[in-house]
């Protein structure tokens, strides 16, 4: 019977060790809108062709009457988990890197803005 107790205590201790998990998910277009890249763009001078050459195809093209907007999106999720069988905890953080560029009817850049989270800057 002493062996039984020992076995149960052993199983109990082993399960307390638990497990942990870490994962990440990335989807969207390649992030090419770092400051070093967008510094080359000038409102009123740069064209849609310049933007497409630097950044590649966008996630979305929005027609605004005579104007156009190019929208770039990169979605980055990071998850961490603690798995102890009796108690499991998962935390998932999602951040959105994005850039938007407006062009007039002559395909000239009129305005743009970018947002990049530090983890995706490299």
């Amino acid at each position: 019977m002493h062996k039984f107790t020992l076995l149960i205590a052993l199983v109990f201790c082993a399960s307390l060790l638990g497990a942990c998990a870490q994962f990440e998910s990335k989807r969207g277009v390649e992030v090419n809108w770092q400051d070093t890249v967008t510094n080359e763009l000038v409102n009123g001078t740069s064209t849609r062709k310049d933007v497409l050459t630097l950044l590649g195809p966008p996630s979305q093209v929005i027609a605004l009457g005579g104007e156009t907007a190019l929208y770039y999106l990169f979605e980055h999720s990071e998850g961490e988990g603690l798995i102890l069988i009796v108690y499991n905890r998962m935390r998932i953080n999602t951040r959105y890197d994005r850039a938007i560029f407006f062009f007039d009817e002559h395909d000239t850049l009129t305005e743009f803005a970018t947002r990049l989270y530090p983890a995706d800057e490299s």
Partner: protein
Amino acid sequence: MKVSTTRILYLLLTCWLLTGCSQWRYDMGVPISSNNLPAQKTPLNEVLQLLGPPLRMSASDTGFIMAWEHWDIRENSIGITLGALGADFFSADWGEMRVKGEFLLMTFDHQHLLTSATHSDWDNDGGGGQAIQPFFSFISVVDVEDLIGPMPQHDWGSLLLQADLPSALNSGSNSDTGQEGLQQRATPKAVGQQSLEMD
């Protein structure tokens, strides 16, 4: 006395293996600074400098619409199952969900000047349930799928090439294309433009 201790230990271990508690936390986006919403007629470039590019955008008859959002979803569940003992039947579950969020909507005219700005935030019970399922576990008592999905921009191209008929016929009114307005996460499909896509 030794037998009694062993039995108690065995019973405790069995109960411990039968019960499980899970917590899921989803944090999507970053909190929106709503203390100083820009005034009407603020130029677009100042708004973008303040808030960054929007998360959702669409053309409108009078110009365009932009939206920023932040979601914090908490899902808690506790269940008893025989799975740990190798039996794939009988489970008793309880679960609940809490949803906190913020949404900032701005409209601009064709001159790129702000015409309106509205901000809302909420901290609500997102639902939940209890279930006793004697044979197989068919139902999840908490459903967060429609709240945590990816942004519609990822599917922009494929939206225009849908093959299934109700959706294809409605593609001109789809709110995910960026041309026909926008909608928040978890908007029921039975209302608005998407109701035309229902079979």
